[in-house]
């Protein structure tokens, strides 16, 4: 199973790039679903011996990250009728190049960190830099996009980065903690979805820029 780690991690980076470079919210959500599925497979692949424990965690991840959350985001999109991100703070090309810079930066930073998951240069050693890269790209999306729904996508990408980081400690962190995190994220996205829905009803758009003005009435 170990030989699968490297291609899977690179596929995660490619989905990150796809989210950074696309203007269609539907495509963003689809890529996020793919990323969730990849994470589910990864959490099984990093195990030395496949245990029922890991399989359960992987299956749970796939169900929540690749099926439920994207379904919920699609629902929110339908309710708020958004199709594409209008004016991001920086262009798609700039954010894609920023993504490439972030990946380079994460590799540079990760090589200075004490090795957690595996030795430097091995497939497992890729986990830390790519976790960092996913996390930071999530930040980039979160900061630069203006629609609340793309910001939720950014938040989920950030969380995916945290999840990847958690995989380096898979044999030390208990199963319950991971499941708890998954549940937390699930609840958080639910709340966000409801907030998005209400922003849309209140302002007739889900541009987060509207939230700058305070209203006293």
């Amino acid at each position, binding site marked *: 199973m170990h030989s699968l780690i490297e291609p899977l991690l690179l596929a995660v*980076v490619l989905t990150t790039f796809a989210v950074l470079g696309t203007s269609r919210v539907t495509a963003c959500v689809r890529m996020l679903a793919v990323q969730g599925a990849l994470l589910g497979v990864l959490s099984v692949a990093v195990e030395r011996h496949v245990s029922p424990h890991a399989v359960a965690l992987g299956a749970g991840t796939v169900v929540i990250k690749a099926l439920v959350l994207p379904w919920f985001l699609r629902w929110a999109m339908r309710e708020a009728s958004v199709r594409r991100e209008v004016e991001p703070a920086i262009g798609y090309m700039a954010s894609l190049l920023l993504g490439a810079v972030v990946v380079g930066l994460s590799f540079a930073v990760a090589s200075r960190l004490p090795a957690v998951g595996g030795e430097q240069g091995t497939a497992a050693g890729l986990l830390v830099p790519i976790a960092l890269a996913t996390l930071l790209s999530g930040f980039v999306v979160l900061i630069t996009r203006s629609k609340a729904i793309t910001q939720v996508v950014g938040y989920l990408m950030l969380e995916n980065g945290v999840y990847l980081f958690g995989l380096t400690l898979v044999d030390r962190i208990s199963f319950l903690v991971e499941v708890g995190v998954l549940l937390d994220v699930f609840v958080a996205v639910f709340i966000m979805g409801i907030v998005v829905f209400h922003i849309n009803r209140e302002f007739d758009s889900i541009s987060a820029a509207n939230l700058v003005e305070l209203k006293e009435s």
Partner: protein
Amino acid sequence: MTPETATPVVALLLTLVLAPLVPGVATRTRALLTGRRGSPVWQLYADLWKLSRRGIVYARVTSAPFRLVPIAALGSVVAAALLVPLDGRASIFAFPGDIVAFAYALALARFVLVLGALDTGSSFEGMGASREVTFAALVEFALFVSLAALSVATHQLSLSGLAGAPLAERWTSATPALGMVAAGLFILLLAECSRSPVDDPTTHLELTMIHEVMILDHSGPDLGVILYASSVKLSVLAALVARIVWPVARLAPAARLGALAAALVLMGVLVGVVESSMARLKLPKVPLYIASGAALSALGLVLLLR
């Protein structure tokens, strides 16, 4: 001449002869996939033959350099071809740093075409030239990122080093990274050779053309030479990508030549498949497309530097 020294020369001649076939194969694939019969694969040979018997008309406003454009463009493309290890092992000329010479030989071909386009004073051609140069500036950066990645992978500074034997050994240890660099280079190939999704070689609407609009004022044999030069450029880049994906340095000379011919045809089919499955991008989207190629190569570079 031993077979070992002769194969690069034979490979170059083979590429020069087969070059017009590659766009033909691409067009045919595209036609078949979209449910048409399409023109025969040797259409470009017929076109070139037809053009070679035509007279040349020069616009009165053009000056002397305009007449040198076709042959200068062909010359620079062939010069670039001399540096590529077409036979999979060695190129005809190789020296440390010839990757830079390769990139700028291709850039020179584009430069003379742009000069010719500007020389006519036609506003359409000026527009095409400005688009071509805009995208070329982006492609150049991305091309150097991917060449740098290959150079890092093999610790070589010449094309025949980095696309020849040393690369074959790296494939076993760095497959995903090299795959990304190759995919990035393929994206650049489509942009560099003005194929879909960047430019549509079959378009006849001046407003949307990039490469084609620059050569509107060339006629007869001149036009033929330019068309031939662009097909050679496509074949050389296709052969380079094929050499990276499929290093054949260990095969016998004859097998390597066969692999070259097969690779050219396969790349033609691949270009045709991409063209039939993707619509032409809007012009403002093209930089994003090129940036995605650069990002792929950069990721490969980071992985190889690790």
